[in-house]
């Protein structure tokens, strides 16, 4: 696998036969590289795994291709193009409110307008020492007015730059806006520029949160929040102006609370100096006007007139297409990839090939959980999170890909990371190379043994389909979100991945509709359908999640910031949105640990005649005391049945896991009152339940409630009772004969005991 000489990403993760895809590749200088289309059968490289199978497909993708190395330029900004309305004379003031997060960590430009070629123009900035400063450059000579007063991180200030063309007076000023007992004073500084030379009226765009270095590179990114900046055609002496500015003409006044889901910033001055955002700075965040009376930006956006910019934001690497290729019309549905190679290096970019438009070519559809792949994309769990060793119960293993990510943080972040300024990451994109979305990738959280996670763990399932020669079509989360239930309608069985954790409302609606239409669902994973996410209506390939309220999370969103900027939805746990996973698959997230997995023990309910087909030919009482993912079928993240959370009363809990260690702990959402005894060796709540139930529409659900289950299916080359049991379910679920729920039972049995 590549250590970074070869990188790339595809323009999409799902395509139909006949579609043309673009590959955006980067190749270190040297010989040309080749590209192949491959089909991914099984990506686990562990010696005990069924064998790595990534098979070349005889399709000419073109090439060899000349090496061309690309860079990633992270950092978000706002850009306002030069326009006649911005030629307004050189007496002016620029004013904004700011909430810096890393003052003193290098020069950070707040607002700037400079000619790229000469650097002439102005900048309002935080200097290398952390002080507010104004800079003007004329004929290459720079004049600076620095307040020499170090700004505090996470405090609101009103800041301004003023220039008087008649006197040449350049001024920087700031005043604290926060109330409280802390002593905090404003600051002022002034300098003199050459009179009569342009400072504002330069032929250049205006940038916010960075300095325009040249046409494609931006430097001196600002970390922090910027609130409703404006420009007027008057200088100020001491008092920083506010709007309305009496006696002055407003050149531009951007109201960041307008059109929060968009990448547009709106000028309310009437001069139409609207701008655009680059690299997805965070919107829908609180500004200096937030007073706690509103917690949802869709209810009163005036509290949310700030944008949080980060020097490490990244939406789209923006590399040009290196080559395009068209999929054959007769290419069967499946999980494929473009693999680029040179000598011993390679980089693999998976994608799903659908059945032809409007067709089904199999009775089984495998729902590839690409939203969850995006949520974990390039996660730094092994690099930045010291607790990883603790929750895994073993030393963290770093791969060549991890080392490359450590050396190149510009590859971007995901929901499991913090920005460099310590703020949480709300957006995660697939429009960049994703190191952990490759077959063969060894993860961090996959349990003792294969240690596969997300995509590579899901190849235990594609390998199982292949082993059983079961035809299947593939649909991705993103397809389901965009197309709705239509793209899974008519399939007799839907099979999930091992950890389909992230679900949009449209996805959940589609799955509910599928079940109401008599669908049969095999949930072969753990911690599924847990977080509500938002896709962006206009920006492809990016999701948002504010992990509101509680749940297992890397950080808590800021107060008042529980609503997604993309859509205004209250993201966070589906359980807090009134649709716990139990209402879909009968089980819901209960506990996690990442060391040794455990077996299940059959319950009396497994003898119920309704479940006879599941245990056909299986005599064992203990199920899955083996496996590639932690050595057992119940492990990593565990779901349990709970009627109070929506598990159907007629659900059969067929088996329950037992014997978890104390690295396993109950979920925080179940831990209202911290009490001793929440570890796996003591807590009833630390368990996975295998659940089966029929639906009124003739369908059924089979859920295993464990990420490690598929690792047991793949054990001994799929020859074991976990694989056989799962095949029994699949065989019956493929049968046309409708399922019939039993008469309503008394309200007993599967209620989960409170861990506290």
């Amino acid at each position: 696998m590549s250590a970074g000489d070869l990188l790339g990403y595809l323009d999409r993760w799902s395509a139909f036969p006949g579609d043309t895809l673009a590959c955006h590749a980067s190749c270190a200088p040297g010989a040309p590289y080749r590209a192949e289309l491959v089909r991914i059968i099984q990506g686990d490289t562990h010696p005990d795994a069924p064998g790595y199978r990534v098979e070349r497909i005889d399709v000419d993708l073109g090439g060899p291709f000349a090496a061309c190395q690309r860079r990633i330029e992270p950092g978000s900004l706002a850009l306002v193009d030069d326009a006649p309305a911005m030629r307004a004379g050189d007496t002016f003031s620029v004013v904004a409110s700011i909430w810096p997060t890393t003052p003193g960590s290098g020069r950070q430009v707040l607002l700037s307008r400079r000619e790229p070629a000469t650097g002439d123009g102005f900048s309002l900035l935080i200097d290398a020492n952390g002080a507010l400063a104004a800079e003007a450059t004329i004929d290459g000579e720079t004049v600076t007015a620095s307040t020499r007063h170090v700004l505090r991180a996470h405090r609101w200030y009103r800041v301004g730059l003023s220039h008087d063309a008649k006197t040449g007076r350049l001024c920087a000023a700031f005043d604290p806006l926060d109330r409280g007992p802390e002593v905090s004073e404003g600051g002022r500084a002034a300098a003199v520029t050459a009179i009569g030379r342009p400072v504002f009226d330069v032929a250049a765009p205006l940038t916010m949160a960075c300095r325009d270095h040249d046409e494609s590179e931006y430097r001196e990114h600002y970390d922090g929040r910027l609130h409703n900046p404006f420009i007027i055609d008057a200088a100020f002496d001491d008092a920083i102006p506010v709007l309305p500015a009496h006696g002055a003409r407003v050149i531009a006044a951007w109201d960041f609370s307008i059109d929060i889901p968009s990448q547009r910033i709106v000028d309310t001055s009437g001069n139409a100096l609207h701008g655009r955002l680059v690299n997805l700075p965070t919107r829908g965040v609180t500004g200096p006007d937030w007073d706690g009376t509103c917690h949802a930006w869709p209810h009163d956006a005036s509290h949310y007139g700030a944008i949080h910019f980060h020097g490490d934001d990244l939406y789209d690497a923006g590399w040009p297409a290196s080559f395009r290729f068209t999929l054959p019309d007769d290419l069967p549905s499946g999980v494929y990839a473009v693999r680029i190679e040179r000598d011993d290096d390679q980089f693999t970019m998976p994608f799903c090939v659908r059945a032809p438009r409007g067709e089904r070519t199999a009775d089984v559809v495998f729902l590839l959980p690409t939203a969850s792949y995006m949520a974990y994309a390039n996660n730094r769990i092994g690099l930045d999170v010291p607790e990883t060793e603790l929750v895994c119960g073993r030393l963290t293993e770093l791969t060549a890909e991890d080392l490359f990510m450590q050396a190149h943080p510009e590859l971007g972040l995901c929901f499991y990371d913090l920005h460099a300024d310590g703020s949480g990451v709300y957006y995660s994109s697939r429009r960049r190379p994703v190191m952990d979305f490759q077959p063969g990738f060894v993860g961090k959280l996959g349990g003792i043994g294969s240690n596969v996670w997300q995509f590579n763990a899901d190849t235990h399932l594609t390998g199982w389909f292949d082993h059983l020669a079961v035809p299947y079509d593939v649909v991705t989360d993103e397809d389901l979100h965009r197309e709705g239930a239509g793209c899974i309608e008519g399939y007799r069985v839907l099979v999930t991945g091992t950890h389909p954790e992230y679900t949009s409302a449209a996805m959940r609606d589609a799955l509910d509709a599928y079940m109401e239409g008599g669908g049969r669902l095999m949930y072969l994973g753990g911690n599924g359908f847990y977080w509500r996410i938002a896709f962006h209506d206009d920006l492809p390939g990016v999701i948002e999640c504010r992990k509101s309220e509680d749940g297992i999370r890397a950080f808590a969103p800021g107060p008042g910031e529980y609503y997604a900027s993309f859509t205004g939805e209250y993201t966070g746990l589906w359980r807090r949105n009134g649709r716990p996973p139990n209402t879909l698959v009968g089980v819901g997230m209960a506990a996690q640990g990442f060391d040794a997995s455990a077996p299940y023990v059959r319950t009396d309910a497994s003898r119920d005649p309704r479940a006879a087909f599941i245990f056909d030919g299986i005599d064992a009482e203990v199920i899955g005391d083996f496996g590639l993912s932690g050595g057992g079928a119940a492990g990593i993240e565990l779901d349990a049945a709970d009627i109070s959370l929506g598990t159907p009363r007629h659900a059969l809990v067929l088996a329950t896991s037992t014997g978890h260690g104390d690295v396993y702990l109950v979920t925080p959402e179940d831990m209202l009152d911290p009490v001793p005894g929440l570890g796996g060796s003591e807590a009833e709540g630390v368990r996975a339940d295998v659940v089966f139930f029929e639906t009124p529409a003739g369908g059924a659900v089979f859920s295993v409630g464990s990420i490690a289950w598929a690792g047991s299916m793949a054990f001994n080359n799929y020859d074991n009772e976990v694989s056989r049991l799962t095949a029994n379910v699949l065989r019956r679920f493929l049968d046309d004969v409708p399922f019939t729920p039993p008469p309503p039972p008394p309200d007993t049995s599967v209620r989960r005991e409170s861990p506290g």
Partner: protein
Amino acid sequence: MSRYRISRADLPFAREFLENPRGPASHGLQRVLNRMRTDVAGGKYVLVVREPHRRWVLARLTGRRGAPVELIPEHEFDDLLEAERTVFRLRWKALTGEALAP
């Protein structure tokens, strides 16, 4: 401040770990491991994979993005359990000032 302090009283748990690094750990050993494994990222021991599932080298995280992981080439392993034992001994020495007897 009640962070657990590892002492000679924990020697039985050290023996337990060295005999069976994969556990399941007794409550006493888990307490020792919790203390050992809660280092901050900067300086924390990790393994760098030389060959997947076959060969590893000990390393330390730097805690700074962009700063290379610091390899400790004198500690190479072809057995993950031996790596666990080695790091346990290193941490024991660092936290108690005394080397664990072989």
